[in-house]
Each structure stands twice: as structure tokens, then as C-alpha cells.
């Protein structure tokens, strides 16, 4: 397990801290869950011998065999639909959708079946299915390989939607998602797969990791709200703001459904200003929900309207234009300037 990883801390009985790439942290999250529970399965296109097109399932089939790490036919509705059946039989499937733009053939199974099974059976059936979706842009990909469809799922009751931003959260949230009796849409910021960070492999999953936001940088003058791929962008913007003398707080939502509104509101009550950042289009999006809730619950603390920085109401553009589409440090700084100038 450690041959490809760099040890950075002493291993003790309680701690096993390693510096891992984001993708490797996800792999180990699945690997350790599979080792603990024989009912955990991994299924998807190319997840077996190849280890997935991003190698996130690398080594799992060799360790757990073809019955538990299943190379499926190339049919996303089939992957999710059969995962539902496996879950009804007592299994805990972790499905990989190869790219964000390919999830839509499974949209029916996810929204009409997976999301509603517990409800329509009045709690008699549970379907603990995790659907991993590498999402977001910035990797120069072709059409349908850079999208951010999380709002489409968040609008459906019965699904939990999460997106980690660090290797440690990736590891922690993967294990918590697999353990969850609810279906989880696990949005993986593919542009961050190769980023590295410290992961404590021995720690049990932190309680509430699928429900709670986290302040990743403290500040006093403006709150930057982000999740998944835009947390790193927000932190860079906070650095730039600090250089200009503005103190920004950065909140990593981690959970998209449910949103940890109390955490965001607590921050905004301190700072009085708020900018929400995501790669998905701003219009009709997650940010709009955050704006609405902050306005309802922190209205008298606000010094300026809550602003959004996101993708545009246009299809995800060609790779040569994606730098204009994606929220950049400069666009975040522009939004903060507008907030401060209000």
C-alpha cells in the first residue's frame, strides 16, 4: 500500500498519516471499506483490469476479484439499475460513472428509482448505492467531459450529494458515503485528482462529514463559499486578497445536499459579505440556494448583496475557451471588489 506513497509522519497505533494524491485517497477509501465489509462492490466501465480511466479503482480487482470489482457493459442506466437491485439484495455497490457528461442515461434510474425507493416503501427498503462522478473542467477535455451537473441531482429529494476538496476529505467522505444507508452522489473534482495532501488512514470517518461544511481559512471581511474544485481557487483568491489587505474567510461546503446553511450563516454574520463560487452555471444553481438562505437568515448582517461566481448559461465550451468559463481567481476578486464597493 505504501510503495507508491510517501510517508510523512510516524505511524502510531492511532494515526497513519500519509501524503497521498487525491485519487489515491479515494482508492484507499474504497479499498478499506471493501476490506471491512464483504458486501461492498465496485462496478463501472473499465474499473477492473484497467483500474478506471483515471485509475481511481487501481488494484481493487486484483485484490478483491471480479465478483466484487465488476467491469460492466457500457450502459450507465444498466450500471445504476443493477446496482439498485444489488442493494435490494443487501449489497453496497459503488458505481463509477466514467465522466460527468455520461451520467444522463442513468438519470432516470437515479432520480425516479434510487432516490425514491426508501420513501415509496415507507422505509422498508434501503438502497445504499454510491455513484462516483468525476466532474468539472480545467483539464482540456473534449465535449461532455467537463461538466458540473450536481444541481440536477440536488433538486431531487432522497439523494445526498457531496464533493470533497482535499485528499483527507476524499478518503473520509468515501468511507462515510459507502457506510451511509442513503444513496450518495459523490462528485469527484477530477482536476484535483493529482493534488496531494495528508491523509490519516487510521482515523475513523469524522462524524457528520456528509452533512457539514468546514471553514478552511479564517477571515473577517468577506466569506467565500465553495466546494470541490473551486475550494482551491477560493483559497488562492483569499491569498491574493490578503496581499491587498482584505481578510477573506473560505468555507468548504463539502455537502451539497444537505447544505450546511448554519455554518455559512455563522460565517456571514461575522464578515457581512458573501461570494459563492462553483463551476456549474450560476443560473438556477446551488449558489442561488445559498444566496437565498443567507439572505433569509443573515439579512441584517449583510453589508452587500450576496454574489455568485460560476459558469455561464451556455453549454460547457470548447477547451480553448474553458479558462473564460471557469471561475478564476480574477473573477472572484472582481466579485469581492463589487461587494466591498457596495
Amino acid at each position, binding site marked *: 500500500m505504501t510503495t507508491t506513497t510517501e510517508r510523512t509522519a510516524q505511524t502510531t497505533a492511532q494515526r497513519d498519516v500519509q501524503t497521498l494524491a487525491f485519487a489515491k485517497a479515494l482508492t484507499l477509501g474504497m479499498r478499506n471499506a471493501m476490506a471491512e465489509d464483504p458486501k461492498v462492490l465496485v462496478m463501472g466501465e473499465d474499473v477492473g483490469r484497467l483500474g478506471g480511466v483515471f485509475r481511481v479503482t487501481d488494484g481493487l480487482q486484483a485484490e478483491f476479484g471480479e465478483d466484487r470489482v465488476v467491469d460492466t457493459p457500457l450502459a450507465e442506466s444498466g450500471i445504476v439499475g443493477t446496482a439498485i437491485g444489488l442493494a435490494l439484495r443487501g449489497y453496497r455497490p459503488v458505481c463509477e460513472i466514467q465522466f460527468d457528461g455520461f451520467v444522463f442515461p442513468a438519470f432516470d434510474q437515479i432520480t425516479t*428509482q434510487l432516490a425514491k425507493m426508501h420513501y415509496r416503501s415507507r422505509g422498508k427498503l434501503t438502497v445504499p448505492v454510491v455513484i462516483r462522478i468525476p466532474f468539472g473542467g480545467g483539464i482540456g477535455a473534449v465535449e461532455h467531459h467537463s461538466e458540473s451537473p450536481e444541481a440536477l441531482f440536488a433538486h431531487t429529494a432522497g439523494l445526498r450529494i457531496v464533493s470533497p476538496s482535499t485528499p483527507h476529505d476524499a478518503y473520509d467522505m468515501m468511507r462515510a458515503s459507502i457506510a451511509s444507508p442513503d444513496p450518495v452522489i459523490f462528485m469527484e473534482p477530477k482536476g484535483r485528482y493529482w493534488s496531494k495532501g495528508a491523509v490519516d488512514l487510521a482515523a475513523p470517518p469524522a462524524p457528520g462529514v456528509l452533512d457539514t461544511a468546514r471553514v478552511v481559512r479564517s477571515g473577517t471581511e468577506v466569506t467565500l463559499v465553495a466546494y470541490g474544485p473551486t475550494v482551491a481557487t477560493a483559497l488562492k483568491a483569499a491569498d491574493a486578497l490578503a496581499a491587498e489587505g482584505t481578510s477573506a474567510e473560505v468555507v468548504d461546503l463539502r455537502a451539497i445536499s444537505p447544505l450546511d446553511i448554519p455554518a455559512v450563516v455563522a460565517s456571514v454574520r461575522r464578515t457581512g459579505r458573501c461570494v459563492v463560487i462553483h463551476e456549474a452555471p450560476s443560473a438556477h444553481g446551488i449558489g442561488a440556494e445559498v444566496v437565498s438562505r443567507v439572505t433569509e437568515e443573515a439579512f441584517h448582517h449583510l453589508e452587500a448583496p450576496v454574489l455568485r461566481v460560476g459558469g455561464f448559461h451556455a453549454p460547457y465550451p470548447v477547451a480553448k475557451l474553458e479558462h473564460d468559463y471557469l471561475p478564476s481567481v480574477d473573477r472572484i476578486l472582481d466579485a469581492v471588489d463589487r461587494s466591498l464597493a457596495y
Partner: protein
Amino acid sequence: MVDQATGEEGLIQLLDPVGARVDTPENAGYRARVAHLEGDDLRAMYRDMVLTRRFDDEATALQRQGELALFAQARGQEAAQVGSAYALAPQDYVFPSYREHGVLHVRGVDPVDRLRLFRGQDHGGWDPAEHNVQLYTLVLGSQVLHATGYAMGIQRDGLVGTGDPTRDAAVAVYFGDGTTSQGDVHEAMVFAAVNDSPVVFYLQNNQWAISEPTTRQAKVPFADRGLGYGIPSVRVDGNDVLACYAVTLEALERAHSGGGPTLIEAFTYRMGAHTTSDDPTRYREREEEEYWRRRDPLERLEALLKAEGLWDEAWFAAVEADAEVLAERIRTETRELGAPPTEALFEHVYATPHATVAEERAWFAEYEDETEASR
């Protein structure tokens, strides 16, 4: 005479439309599978078909009286449903569509529970674990994939090919001719075929998908499609309860022993409307309905029982009395179902607490209290 894409050639048949036994070299294997059925077995099948039809009639009447929002009749498909259900072992699992009242009757799902969905009182209505029957599924074809996944789970449980008839398990999934056009059915057959999964794909071709005849779904018999997946496929006279039983038994033997999936096309007819909201006079001819009325599956079995000296008037009177008891119970208890409490709107959205649901539930309770107080 019927405007159908696929004709009636090649149907496995053990009883002809007037209830006479059909003995051909081709159906010898199927005849052998029903040879053990005695008078009591055949009378039990008939009784279950009668009760299934009575359930239909009472539910339809309740809908007309405003007690159900909607109802989908199984009338005409009793042989296809009861025959196949008789072949199932207790440990086999059923994934129905939404018209499988005969299958659910045989599996023991309570008739009043089966009407909760149609009354608007529940989206499901029974505990799937109690009779190994999944809830009705209204999105066409979704359940065919669930069934296949469930069968993949049975394989992983090591419950295929053990040789122990009390342990080997399989899945029977029910769907219709219109549903065969859904991509999920195609995907399910691909998954089941390449995994050799223990699934019986039980297609009831009742000739009509609401107003669309089978000519809008297919150019060749539906069963022919199975061959393209490498799935053994058979067409059966769906109004012949013995043939439906025999082909399902054969398919289950294959599934239980590790031989993988089977596609059964039960060629039958939806004698009633698609649902109580439908009006078939707008799209089909009376002469077609008359053609199929002469092929009523209940009359066919009745004719066999009479021809073979198995009919007994006292027994038949008891069946009719049982049907009357069932009808009375449905009439009384369906009306007593009432509505679920308001809180049920928020219950079981998630298996674990979810902040949005909790907040909205609390808000709504407070709103209701205030509204109540101000009255």
C-alpha cells in the same frame, strides 16, 4: 385477424382454446412438466384465476365509486400470471410491473394492500420481504434492471447451482409489450446474458400499450429478440395456464442450476382498458375483443376441468363464495384505509437525518399549529 406484429406461430400450447389437451412431439418436454399436476392442483389454479378476476372487478367498481384514483385491470391475463407464479419457489423473488395482480395473489400479497397505491394512500403498500415481491414499478422497464441486479446478488450469495431446490434462487421480472421498447430492457438483457444471471424475463404481450398495438413496437416476435443476446427464448400461449406454468418452470430450472436467463413471451390479451382512465373504443375494434373473449383463459381451464371429470358443482359454489368474501372484504377495508398522517409526507425521505427535510418538516408543523390556533 388481429392486427399484430408477431402472429401466433410457434406458441407453446398444452391446452387449445376449447380446453382440450394438445399433444405434439414439440411440447413433450412441457407436458412432462405438468404431468404431476392433479385435480386439486388444477382446481387451485382455477380458483386463483377466479379470485384474481374478482379482485379486478371489485377494484374497478371501487374506482367508479370514487374510492380509488385509478386502477389497472389484469383481466384476460390471469393464466399468464397465475401459471407463471405457480412455478416459483418461495425463495424466488418477483419484480412486478403494475398489473400483476394474479402473481401477487398467488404470492400472498394482501388484496387490500395491493389497492393502497391505487387509492393514493401509499406509493407501495406491502413489505417486499414478506412475500419476496418488490413493490409495483410505474416507470416502464426500470424494474427489469433492478431484477437483473438482484439476480447478480443471488449469484454472489452463492445460491445458484447448489443443487438444493430449497436454496437455489432466481428472479422473475414481469413487463409488457410496450416496455420492450425501453432501453432499460435492452440493458437488462445484456447484463443478465453476460453474467449468466438467474432471471426469468416474463414478457406479457397483451397486444396493447395503451392505444399502441404491437406493430408500433416490433417487426418480429418479441421472443426473437432474446436470441440476439444469447438468451434462450420461448413463446407461449399466455391464455393457457398449463403452458405458462410449464415454460416458467423450465426457465426457473435453468436459472436455478446456473444456466442463466430466459425470455418468455406470453402471448395474451388485455381484455379491459389500460386503466380506468382509458377508453379502448377509440382505438380498437369490437371484433378483436370478441375474438379474444372466445379465448378467455378462465373458460379454457373450466372446459378442461369439465372434460376430465374434475369439475364439481359443490366445489365451484365454494369458489364463488370465496370470491364473494374477497369482494366484500375489499369493499369494506379499502374504504376504511383513510389517509396517512400529514407527517408521512416527510417520513423516510432519507434513512438518516437530512437538514432540509428536518427544517421544512418543523416549519410545516409550526405553520399547521398556528393555522389551527387561529381558526
